[in-house]
């Protein structure tokens, strides 16, 4: 499953938490970079495989749970499928748009070619000279969770700001779950069809979850909670520390509404109150 594909913003932490609470096991977590989301799931024992380019803590550096799982199999061993950001992007692109694989040059020379047996080295058949290419096969996740600024009740969604691989990863997935910061009338979305990243006909579920991205930012809605990332980094150095942290912030919190209530004023301080509106685009046909 894809848990966030925008890199460091719009990460669906609310879904991460719920997967932990439900005690999910043996997940193959796919995310190019999803800050501490993947590290949390690993620490909680939900993960069998990680497919991605980076797992850590952008503010703090290392992801302690990821380290422990890879170095000493705690809480369980994980299989790591290494990609670079561009090559996982091409894998999603191929998966989304029906291409069996994509020839990529940007991971030549990297030992990713050694540690990820999915990727094959070949020669460019259009070149008379030897010209190596790395063939990255299509990646087709079962489900993608994504956070959007606003959606209608059918899943037609508006996203703005940088989107990383959100579009390709979502379209590549069999099922899409939208976590919407705000639910709006269909007319609001239809007023700007070019701002739709994923159309509603491909969306399987729409959940209204304000601040689903916390502690990651959501453009125009929520600032990044830098301190939260630092605290996580400090408190999860030891497995016991992670279990304590996970109990307090995930397992003992019944749902995201309770999580928001627990954050209280800390969350309110992250709420973006300013207004920097986009210039309107006119879609009139007459």
């Amino acid at each position, binding site marked *: 499953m894809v848990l966030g594909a925008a890199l460091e913003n719009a990460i669906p932490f609310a879904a991460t938490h719920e997967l932990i609470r439900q005690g999910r096991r043996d997940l193959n977590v796919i995310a190019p970079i999803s800050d501490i989301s993947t590290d949390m799931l690993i620490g909680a024992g939900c993960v069998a495989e990680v497919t991605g380019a980076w797992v850590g803590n952008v503010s703090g550096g290392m992801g302690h749970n990821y380290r422990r799982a890879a170095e000493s199999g705690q809480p369980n061993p994980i299989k790591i499928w290494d990609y670079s950001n561009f090559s996982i992007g091409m894998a999603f692109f191929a998966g989304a748009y029906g291409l069996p694989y994509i020839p990529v040059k940007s991971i030549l020379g990297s030992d990713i070619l050694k540690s990820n047996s999915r990727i094959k080295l070949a020669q460019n058949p259009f070149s008379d000279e030897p010209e190596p290419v790395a063939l990255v096969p299509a990646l087709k996740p079962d489900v993608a969770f994504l956070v959007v600024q606003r959606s209608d009740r059918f899943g037609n969604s508006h996203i703005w700001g940088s989107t990383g691989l959100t579009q390709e990863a979502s379209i590549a997935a069999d099922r899409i779950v939208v976590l919407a910061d705000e639910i709006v009338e269909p007319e609001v979305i239809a007023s700007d069809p070019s701002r739709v990243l994923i159309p509603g006909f491909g969306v399987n579920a729409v959940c209204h979850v304000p601040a689903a991205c916390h502690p990651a930012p959501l453009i125009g809605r929520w600032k*990044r909670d830098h301190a939260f990332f630092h605290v996580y980094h400090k408190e999860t150095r030891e497995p016991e520390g992670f279990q304590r942290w996970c109990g307090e912030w995930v397992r003992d919190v019944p749902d995201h509404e309770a999580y928001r209530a627990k954050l209280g004023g800390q969350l309110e301080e992250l709420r973006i109150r300013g207004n920097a509106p986009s210039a309107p685009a006119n879609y009139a046909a007459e």
Partner: protein
Amino acid sequence: MPPSKPPSKPPSKPEYSTQELMIIAAAREIKDGERIFVGMRLPITAYGVARLTHAPNAVGLFESGVVRYEPAEGMLYTMCDGPNQLGAAWTTGLIQIMGLLSGGRIHAGFIGGAEIDRFGNINTSYIGDIDAPKVKLPGSGGAPDIAAMAERLIIVMNHQKHRLVERVDYITSPGFLDGGDARARAGLAGAGPQVVITDRAILRPFGPENELHLASIHPGHTLDEILENTGWALKSVPDLGETAPPSEPEMTALHRIDKEGFWRG
């Protein structure tokens, strides 16, 4: 180009932190008008300094899908933070941005690493064996793509014996591979690492083997100390000098970017 050296001072405590010198040395590697691939953390700040000083027409690209002309107002913890997106030139997807890199449209890119070897190969993945690593590092992000495809590579990292090693355990991001023309033979574009900025010195590739050589020593540091803290028999370039300390405009620009003093410690 480094600014001319200010009048010499005792090599005790300069009025800048080592981190600040590193940022400014990195900023000096950016030429005006260039399209620069900006990684996370320190390079974001270096780009901001360059743009506010000698490179007002540089363009900064962030792999998540952001392009900026003006540096963002205020400190960024990640490239996706709101201030980096407000007033950006372009907010889009990763493929659009990293594709420009893959398409050979980017002049230079920044990366850092846990380990680097004498041919500029970088490891940010596994220390020890892949299947049973001694240390599992966070991984590549977009660094291999940048290392493979940017016209040249600017590397920033701390200078310790266990970090500057004879041979990295795992090549996350290729430099000159086995040296010489191995890089071109592997099908990589661009000129590879052209500078390594550490907290003690600046290294550059030199000679036909493209081996990293000591190019300048930061004020307050010594050759012996640097050799002791390098994991291979580090040679020096013929015109080895001292790294120019930050100028007044450079420090002003840095403090404007780094309002919270994140890099002052």
